[in-house]
């Protein structure tokens, strides 16, 4: 058995994987097909309930809710992915560098991450929105900014642990450059933790994106987004509660899927479980 193939499937991994696969498939499908044109306004058909018009009814402009949800899935991912990856890339670079060089660089990196952490995410997102104009870019940046310290800390934490291990000392004794050690010896061993963190942060990013577009800071209309669907739905709560329920469930299932996937991956990849059997001591 190879190290990389020692992934034990578990319930969380399977359920999370399936939910996430459905989310991604829906998002991709929306690029080529939706039941209706999601931006097509049909005033005469406004606020129809589920099955009265379309599977899940129509919104206040008579747009098909299913189509909106499908494109919303794409938009949600289109913001969450780049934001988390950007934050992960920068954060991991900072974190592993801090772990490799320690000292002053480490201290500064951690203080700065304290500062970013101290800002409530939504507030800094609003400020970034005010800065670069509310739109997808602002949302991506805001979520990325918040992810940088998260990944910096996670990467630093696990990298510091790895740096204390003897195989790093061995690598140094072989004359390897710290950068090369970071790349060849540290990265592969913290990758599992980072991948798990990526899925968790993706889930958080979807939640944050929904919150931002709820406040009117995410994807631009008429491009649909789950958060804005919720904020639109709020005024029609008593007339058309389905408008508030459907996007919420979409968000919850996506987040649930990614979280379960993260948990499942963590269990499957956990180095503390690996190679350890319940042998008598």
């Amino acid at each position, binding site marked *: 058995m190879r190290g990389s193939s020692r992934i034990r499937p578990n319930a969380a991994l399977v359920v999370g994987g399936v939910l996430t696969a459905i989310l991604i498939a829906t998002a991709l499908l929306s690029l080529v097909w939706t039941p209706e044109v999601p931006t097509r*306004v049909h005033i005469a058909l*406004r606020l129809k309930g589920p099955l009265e018009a379309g599977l899940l009814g129509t919104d*206040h402009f008579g747009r098909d809710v299913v189509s909106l949800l499908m494109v919303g899935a794409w938009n949600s991912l289109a913001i969450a992915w780049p934001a988390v990856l950007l934050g992960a890339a920068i954060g991991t670079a900072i974190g592993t560098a801090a772990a490799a060089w320690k000292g002053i660089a480490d201290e500064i990196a951690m203080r700065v991450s304290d500062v970013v952490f101290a800002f409530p995410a939504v507030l800094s997102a609003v400020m970034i929105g005010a800065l670069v104009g509310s739109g997808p870019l602002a949302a991506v940046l805001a979520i990325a900014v918040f992810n940088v310290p998260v990944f910096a800390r996670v990467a630093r934490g696990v990298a510091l642990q790895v740096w204390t291990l003897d195989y790093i000392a061995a690598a140094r004794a072989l004359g390897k450059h710290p950068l090369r050690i970071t790349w060849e010896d540290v990265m592969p061993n913290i990758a599992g933790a980072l991948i798990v963190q990526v899925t968790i942060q993706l889930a958080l990013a979807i939640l944050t994106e929904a919150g931002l577009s709820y406040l009117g800071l995410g994807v631009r209309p008429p491009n649909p987004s789950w958060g804005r669907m919720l904020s639109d739905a709020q005024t029609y709560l008593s*007339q058309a509660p389905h408008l508030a329920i459907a996007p919420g469930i979409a968000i919850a299932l996506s987040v649930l899927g990614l979280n379960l996937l993260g948990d499942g991956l963590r269990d499957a990849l956990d180095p503390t479980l690996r190679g350890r059997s319940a042998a008598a001591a």
Partner: protein
Amino acid sequence: MSKRFLAAALLLTVSFAPAYAAKTSLVVGMPIEPPGLDPTIAAPVAIREVTWANLYEGLVRIDRNGKVQPLLAKSWEVSPDGLTYTFKLQDGVKFHDGTTFDSADVKFAFDRARDPKSTNAQKQIFAPIESIETPDPQTVVIKLKHPSGNFLTYLGWGDAVIVAPETAATNASNPVGTGPFTFKSWTRGDRVELTKNPDYWQKDKVQLENVTFRFISDAQAQVAALKAGDVDAFPNLGAPELFAEFQKDPRFKAVAGNTEGETVAGMNNAKKPFDDVRVRRALMHAIDRKALIEGAYSGFGQPIGSFFSPNHPAFVDTTDVIPYDPEKAKALLKEAGYGDGLSISIKAPQMAYASRSAELISAMLSEVGVDLQIIPTEFPAKWIEEVFKNKNYDVTIVSHTEPLDIDIFARDNYYFNYQNPKFKELMAEIARTTDEKERHAKYAEAQKILAEDVPALFLFQLPKLGVWNAKLEGLWENSPVPANDITEVRWTE
């Protein structure tokens, strides 16, 4: 069954009991909280909706029909050349702090408003003033540099209320005026409370003892507050989609009136392709105002074809000048050289009516081959910076809520970048015209010019969706000026 009936009857008696004693308190709901309580130093409408006619009074007032009526000035004379206004003031008027109101206060208030350091939002009201004289405590003589046709109307606005020199500086947080109510408290983010002014000069008109303005921005919460009886009246309900419920409910009176808010999609007339009137007309032809109102405001609001409030006597309906006609729109676009399509953007503020309208306009324009990209632009911060100041936009959308502001299309450097010498001249003439009839005729002409030239896409008049307890009387159905005048509001029974 009978037991339950009995219980219900008992309950009814109990709950009706207090209603027999004439109720003297009123809770008025407003969607937006005023940022201060001095209408003479800041622009927001919400300030006027709390203070105007309730806390502060001007020399004259605008009544519910948009007509000028005497108030602190019991009468006035205008010289034939339209340059000298002589006001006779009411006797026995006192400010809330006990000081007496006289002509010196009028002079102080107007001098303060037109001072270079003043931050009055409507300084142009006072711009024509040459001098203010106070021959005696009950007389004020104002001399103008040039005739100002709407001078009296302007004096009825919130920006021209009379404040006392002793208290002017602190009015924003502790307002002192001459009105029928005095300021009691302000819980920021929640409510402003007023009580009856025991020394009011026309005390008999006032029935209410306590008035509370509560600020509830969320539409659901507004509705809930009304239904729960936490709020007695919502003169301007934020949620048109929920208004219909109240129309059917006998416990409430629900009136869809007009505001002074012309909702228009302003275009950057100096910029290609909007410098071409064919394009502007084409866009106007592409818009189905009825559907727009249905989608953006649940069908409430009057379509407009020009920039004038239906509240005003000089209003003419110009919606037929450029009606909804997508085919014509396509033809005009083709003629202007945009037969293959046109790609433009709209900077839309976050207010529901604006963002929804933008989405609908975008959908309608796409039917005639125009791609309208929506750029959310927060109001006021970003909108004022980008659109209003820097004129960096193609199309935008806002409601212009100031009364009688058709002259903005004559202003240089206004965000429309609209230049029409003929219209400008007409506005100048109106300013000089003191005769009301003549002035109204000219206003009608101005409306037609705009309707044909389409410097902005004229969409609809923002409705005033008033909902209040059916037992209330005296609230305004329209709002010719932004106001919640509660002087004569009363409970029946």
